[in-house]
């Protein structure tokens, strides 16, 4: 479906109630349970909230009753809103804001229930894609653990309050000129909010304002300040067909516009169109970017400046690049000895940078010191890189660490009487050495607005329920400044209010509803007669044109550069880490980010891209270091950093830098909710203002206790036999070749296929009409898990929990297979470094599907359009099909996984997909519900289905567009063309199962032309192994 069909998205119409509401007695019960404080019978006439709750949950229940049908009621509108056809999904453009950057999305709403978030093609940071985290935001909306009421905590007592109570008490709390009044808030780019903030600070001139984010790009910002004399926002570009060097940087994951960057990255990697960029990565722990690197060197984070400095040195010394006088200091011999690996990396990179001047870029990770960013900025300047700059939206803002430091100082001084905390969770995520929690207890009046009654709320006097992003009005700015609107898709389920509204209330503004605030603010910018049209268009598109910031071409400011150079020198002198004095790197988690999504089942169960660990964070340690310290995979270890120490399970990860261990933040929550409580360990307890990201001198001690990490793939460490076999198979399953080899011989991906001719016993079936197929480009897949969550959201896939995952019963229909590629001949206990390849694996819809023939009740059959259909309501659950599936992509409902689901959570269900009962097999069917929807529509107006009209959830959300779906019988369709490409191959084709999904081989573009040629050599090995067998 093309995004944003409904032209007539007017303000207050869309969230009105739905057509058919099957209301059952059980459901009334459910409502009472869910919403104790309002009795069904005394419903105020058609209040939106009641209605939404009712219809949403009820529909979901309808989805669940899969047996003989009970007496059902049909409850139509009393007044059906104009332009509204009940039962037909609608799509609305809105946005979500994280760390002060708004990400545009289009949310599908079914009869008033937002059920799925997709990317907004018009938004520069989305381009139609959405990250796993952003998609999972929908589930958070319905989270039954979200706080439902205002709480006042006084003298150990806890009172339930109403907003009116708060408004009343707020009057005195926010009295006078704001002396003793402090505000701590999340970073926000919302123009409306800055307006309201100004109004607030006007009202309370003495009030202090602090913005804190645990994870931010402040270092980069400060780096630019050092180089250019003013903070700038850095806009990397990856679409250049040149060379990109990432130093601890992961632009494909942790950058606010990672989705755009991923799209650019993929664009630069299509050999058929001559695009072949080269990616260098030097990092301490495997990142999504690192996985895709052509040259990767695993070095401790504290070595990054050293290597970068060497690159600078080489550029000047070997390649005669002129540094400006002020930066001359960089040119000097770095005085550090580099390992052979590091040197080779530096040399290759230096010469490539020199060759690709104007077509390259050096990116540095946000956890690196400003001085390192500074050096990168200088080099980018002199090399004329593709990096662009815009002015920082808020140049006077102190860094987040500074901000919270100031606040804590004030709290210590006792000068804070009233502390208003808008969002965030400082008690949990403020640097440990600040002891924020304790100090908070001493503040007379502390108010926390939050989705959950979380760690911070529990230490505040007031807790205010916050409206979810999909429940509230707002706006924000994309990374490039594009004005992004946010509109609610559902009235607040839990009586929450947005930060905007609360702030406006505190500021004593006359208009305090989000709708008015946002509309007025935008209206203020447009001096046009017909603002209404502008407004509608803005809501419809989700973005307002012409508001992106101008790029600036800054000049080096000599004054500060000196500081930068000295800063760098200091870093260079640091001793490299060893197994005894380890370096501990605290990273943002690929799933719960900084911990705010800890209570989100989808994200908790998404396997981490590299470790495949779910429901936990683990201490990543390189095999070498593990051997030095005698630590086993999965052993509980004690990490000592400074005076703090915690216990965490160790995960041995090849490709992790020696002497560097890393641990993800965001776990070990104590007040996250039923899902997120006590999952993993809390790394924030090790985090200090001095060393927020990279802690040196950490010690590691094994405890000998084992801990079972719930991974969806077996660990790297398995028995030798399996290890060797796995190495043999990787090459044939995930085919890879060097770009040079491929260009020289396009057949390289098929060279090693030899199996007897694939003849069928029977006459082949004639497949006429549409024949659906898929192509997945392994060269552009970055393993970001977006498709996994998209599929989960679209297909009502249950979350099963850690215990079940431990027992290999995870339910996601797509899994991203991760293989380590190590030098042949090495034993598993000799490995230290490794390359990683990803392969998204879901049902490939075999034409000769082994699963179909063995089902005794014909519950899985082949449809005339070539799908391997799975009929849930016919399945008796023999599991024979799963046994006989060579890809093991079928999933089984071992229990009734929906039994304990809250009614609100059920509201997320997609009514177009059956909710599977216990004892039933399920799997991917190329989103058959989407196919049917389009097919019926096309047939209704007697037209053929256009290529690209049907888009499965996974393909829709893929940031790199690695997944292509379409009609294989149409030679013009994109998918047919991709299947024609030389890189295209079918996995396990030798079984003559004829998969409908084909993979496009992966390419490596190394400077030395190296990289494996073809897909490794399993046969020679096989024969050798054959002898062994004899």
């Amino acid at each position: 479906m093309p995004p944003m069909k409904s032209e007539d998205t007017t303000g207050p119409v869309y969230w009105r109630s739905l057509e058919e509401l099957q209301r059952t007695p059980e459901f009334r019960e459910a409502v009472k349970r869910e919403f104790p404080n309002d009795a069904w019978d005394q419903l105020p006439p058609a209040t939106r909230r009641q209605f939404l709750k009712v219809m949403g949950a009820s529909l979901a229940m309808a989805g669940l009753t899969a047996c003989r049908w009970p007496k059902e009621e049909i409850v139509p509108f009393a007044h059906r809103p104009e332009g509204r056809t009940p039962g037909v999904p609608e799509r609305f453009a809105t946005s979500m804001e994280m760390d002060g950057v708004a990400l545009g999305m289009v949310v599908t709403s079914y009869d008033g229930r937002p059920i799925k978030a997709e990317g907004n093609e018009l938004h520069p940071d989305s381009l139609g894609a959405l990250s796993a985290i952003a998609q999972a935001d929908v589930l958070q909306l319905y989270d039954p653990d979200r706080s439902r009421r205002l709480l006042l905590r006084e003298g150990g007592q806890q009172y339930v309050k109403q907003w009116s109570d708060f408004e009343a008490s707020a009057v005195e709390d926010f009295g006078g000129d704001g002396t003793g009044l402090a505000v701590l808030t999340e970073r926000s780019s919302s123009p409306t909010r800055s307006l309201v903030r100004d109004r607030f600070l006007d009202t309370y001139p003495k009030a202090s304002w602090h913005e804190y984010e645990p994870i931010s790009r402040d270092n980069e910002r400060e780096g630019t300040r050092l180089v250019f004399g003013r903070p700038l926002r850095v806009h990397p570009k990856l679409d250049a067909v040149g060379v990109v060097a990432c130093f601890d940087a992961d632009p494909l994951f942790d950058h606010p516009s990672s989705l755009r960057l991923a799209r650019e990255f993929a664009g630069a990697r299509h050999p058929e169109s001559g695009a072949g960029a080269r990616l260098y990565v030097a990092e301490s722990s495997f990142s999504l970017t690192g996985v895709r690197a052509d040259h990767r060197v695993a070095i401790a984070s504290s070595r990054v400046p050293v290597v970068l400095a060497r690159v600078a040195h080489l550029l000047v010394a070997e390649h005669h690049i002129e540094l400006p006088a002020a930066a001359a200091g960089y040119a000097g011999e770095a005085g550090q000895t580099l390992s052979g690996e590091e040197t080779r990396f530096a040399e290759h990179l230096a010469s490539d940078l020199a060759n690709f001047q104007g077509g390259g870029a050096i990116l540095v990770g946000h956890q690196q010191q400003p001085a390192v960013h500074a050096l990168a900025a200088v080099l980018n300047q002199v090399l004329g890189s593709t990096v662009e700059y815009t002015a920082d939206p808020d140049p006077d803002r102190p860094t987040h660490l500074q901000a919270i430091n100031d606040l804590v100082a004030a709290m210590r001084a006792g000068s804070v009487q009233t502390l208003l905390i808008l969002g965030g969770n400082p008690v949990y995520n403020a640097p440990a050495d600040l002891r924020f929690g304790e100090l908070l207890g001493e503040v007379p009046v502390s108010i926390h607005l939050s989705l959950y009654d979380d760690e911070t709320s529990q230490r505040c006097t007031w807790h205010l329920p916050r409206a979810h992003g999909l429940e509230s009005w707002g706006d924000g700015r994309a990374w490039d400044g594009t004005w992004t609107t946010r509109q609610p898709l559902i009235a607040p389920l839990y009586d929450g209010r947005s930060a905007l509204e609360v702030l406006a209330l505190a500021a004593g503004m006359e208009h305090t509803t989000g709708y008015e605030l946002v509309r007025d603010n935008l209206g203020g910018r447009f001096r046009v007669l017909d603002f209404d049209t502008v407004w509608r268009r803005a809501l419809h598109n989700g973005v307002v044109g012409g508001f992106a910031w101008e790029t600036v071409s800054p000049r080096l400011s000599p004054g500060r550069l000196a500081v930068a150079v000295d800063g760098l020198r200091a870093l260079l002198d640091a001793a490299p880490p060893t197994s005894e004095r380890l370096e501990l790197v605290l990273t943002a988690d690929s799933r719960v980010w900084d911990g705010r999504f800890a209570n989100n089942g989808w994200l908790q169960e998404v396997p981490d891209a590299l470790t495949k660990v779910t429901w936990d964070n683990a201490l990543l340690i390189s095999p070498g270091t593990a051997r030095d310290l005698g630590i086993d995979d999965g052993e509980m270890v004690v990490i000592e950093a400074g005076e703090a120490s915690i216990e965490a399970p160790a995960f041995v990860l090849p490709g992790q830098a020696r002497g560097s261990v890393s641990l993800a933040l965001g776990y070990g929550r104590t007040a996250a909710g039923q899902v997120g409580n006590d999952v993993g360990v809390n790394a924030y307890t090790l985090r200090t203002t001095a060393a927020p990201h990279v802690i040196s001198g950490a010690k590691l001690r094994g405890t000998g206790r084992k801990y079972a990490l719930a991974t969806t793939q077996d660990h790297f460490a398995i028995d030798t036999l399996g290890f060797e076999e796995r190495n043999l198979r990787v090459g044939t399953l995930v085919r890879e070749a060097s770009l040079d080899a491929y260009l020289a011989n396009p057949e390289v991906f098929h060279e090693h296929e030899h199996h007897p001719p694939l003849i069928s016993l029977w006459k082949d079936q004639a497949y006429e009409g549409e024949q659906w197929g898929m192509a997945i480009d392994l060269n552009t897949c970055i393993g970001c898990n977006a498709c996994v969550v998209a599929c989960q959201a679209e297909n009502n896939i249950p979350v099963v929990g850690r215990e079940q995952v431990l027992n290999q019963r995870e339910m996601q229909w797509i899994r991203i297979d991760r293989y380590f590629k190590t030098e042949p001949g090495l034993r598993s206990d000799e490995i230290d470094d490794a390359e990683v390849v990803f392969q998204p694996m879901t049902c490939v819809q075999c034409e000769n599907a082994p699963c179909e023939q063995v089902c005794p009740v014909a519950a899985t059959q082949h449809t005339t359009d070539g799908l391997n259909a799975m009929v849930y309501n016919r399945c008796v659950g023999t599991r024979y099909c799963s046994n006989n599936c060579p890809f093991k992509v079928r999933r089984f409902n071992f229990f009734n996984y929906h039994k304990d689901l809250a009614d609100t959570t059920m509201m997320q269900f997609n009514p177009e997909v059956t909710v599977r009962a216990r004892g039933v097999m399920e799997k991917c069917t190329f989103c058959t519900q989407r196919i049917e929807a389009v097919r019926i529509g096309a047939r209704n107006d007697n037209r053929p289905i256009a290529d690209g009209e049907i888009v499965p959830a996974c393909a829709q959300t893929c940031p790199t567009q690695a997944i292509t779906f379409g009609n294989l019988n149409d030679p013009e369709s994109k998918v047919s063309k991709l299947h024609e490409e030389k890189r295209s191959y079918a996995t396990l084709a030798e079984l003559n199962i004829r998969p409908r999904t084909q993979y496009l081989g992966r390419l490596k573009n190394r400077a030395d032309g190296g990289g494996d040629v073809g897909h490794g050599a399993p046969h020679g090995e096989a024969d050798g192994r054959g002898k062994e067998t004899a």
Partner: protein
Amino acid sequence: MSEAAIDSVSYLDNTGDDPAVRARLVVGDNDFHSVTEKVCGIVEQPRPPKMWWVAFAAASSLTLVLFACIGYLVTTGVGVWGLQVPVGWGYAIVNFVFWVGIGHAGTLISAILFLLRQRWRTSINRFAEAMTIFAVVCAGIFPGIHVGRIWFAYWLFPIPNQMSMWPNFRSPLLWDVFAVGTYATVSLLFWYMGMIPDLASIRDRAKTKLRFYIYGVLSLGWRSSNRHWHRFEFAYLLLAALATPLVLSVHSVVSFDFAVSIMPGWHTTIFPPYFVAGAIFSGFAMVVTLIIPTRKYFGLEEIITARHLENMSKIMLATGMMVGLAYSTEFFIAWYSGNTYEAFTFLNRAFGPYAWAYWTMVTCNVLVPQIFWARKLRNNTVVLWVASILINVGMWFERFVIVVSSLSRDYLPTSWGYYRPTAIDVLTFLGSFGLFFTLFLLFVRFLPMIGMAEVKGVMPQAHLDRPGHRGHGDYHGDIAGVEVV
């Protein structure tokens, strides 16, 4: 007389292989009546001995455990077992194949040995047939309960329905339904039919009205008429002729469940003969395991003689070596085929995570039977009994290795796994033994556990009292000779 010659060897030992004389199949000085006495006596004793009660109490309580587990399973979901992806079949299917295998001895002994004119079968066939039926009952439970939605299991049968749907006859599981169903029915018929004359004996000896009526109805008014015997014999022969291919087909079909799939380690053409051999192997082992204590306890050594045991041990030796051959063939083919997946599967069996199961299997099934080469050992009932139990263990592990180790590591290394049974798995398995023994104990208590009519048929007295004809079975009715007398 040659009879003396035999007896002089020893009173009970009839294992001698003197080609000059046909060894006696009933030893001691038994006449028809004493046989009747011995066999019917067991059924007729007013109350069963203590040991029986003890055994029955144990067995029936295990049966309760079985039903408890099934109840829990049905109400909670198959997740209570250790199953997962990739290993979608675990204990349930292993037990199914195990029990079906055991269920082969009975029909085999009654049918094939009958066709081969192996007269020594007469003392043990009833017993073995009973065992077959009970084993099949146990086997039948597992495919039934292992499905995710038991309440829809009837969809496996071709019943007309409002969905206008039919089961998929291309699925081996459906073949199973028919094969096992047929096998159960035919075994039951065979067993019952053979019992009719003996039930009549009990009827005719009845001391109480109730007993008379019960056995009277069961024996359908059999009046040992020779015109009836004539048809009876024919029917028996026909059933034997039908049951023989059937017994071979059943385990072949069971093996198709695996052979027809594409899983390395399953997709093998030698499975049918391999499975059948294994079935006979395990079946005989189970017969021996049961018969040794029973015959001792009920004093039937004169009817179920040392020779019977010895013959069975020889069959076990033979089939055990067939199974061993199958194991090695699999390995050879895995290498010879050049199919790397196949090759790995077998390496993995022997040296992978499930090596322990594999080597248990090899030890019990291939090495243990080798002791039967030694006459001394195979004629020592204790040794024989222990060996037979080990063989049962080994055969269970064979099925475990085939089902679990093949599934646990198939094509994509990313979906490899390791299957661990849960307590419920184990209890259900033990429970099935409870059910088996409960039925068995009821059988020895209430039904003639030895085919008297057949045993009498092979006793010397059953034939013309004429030198040279002593103990000689076949009479080919040369009535002319009689007329002369």
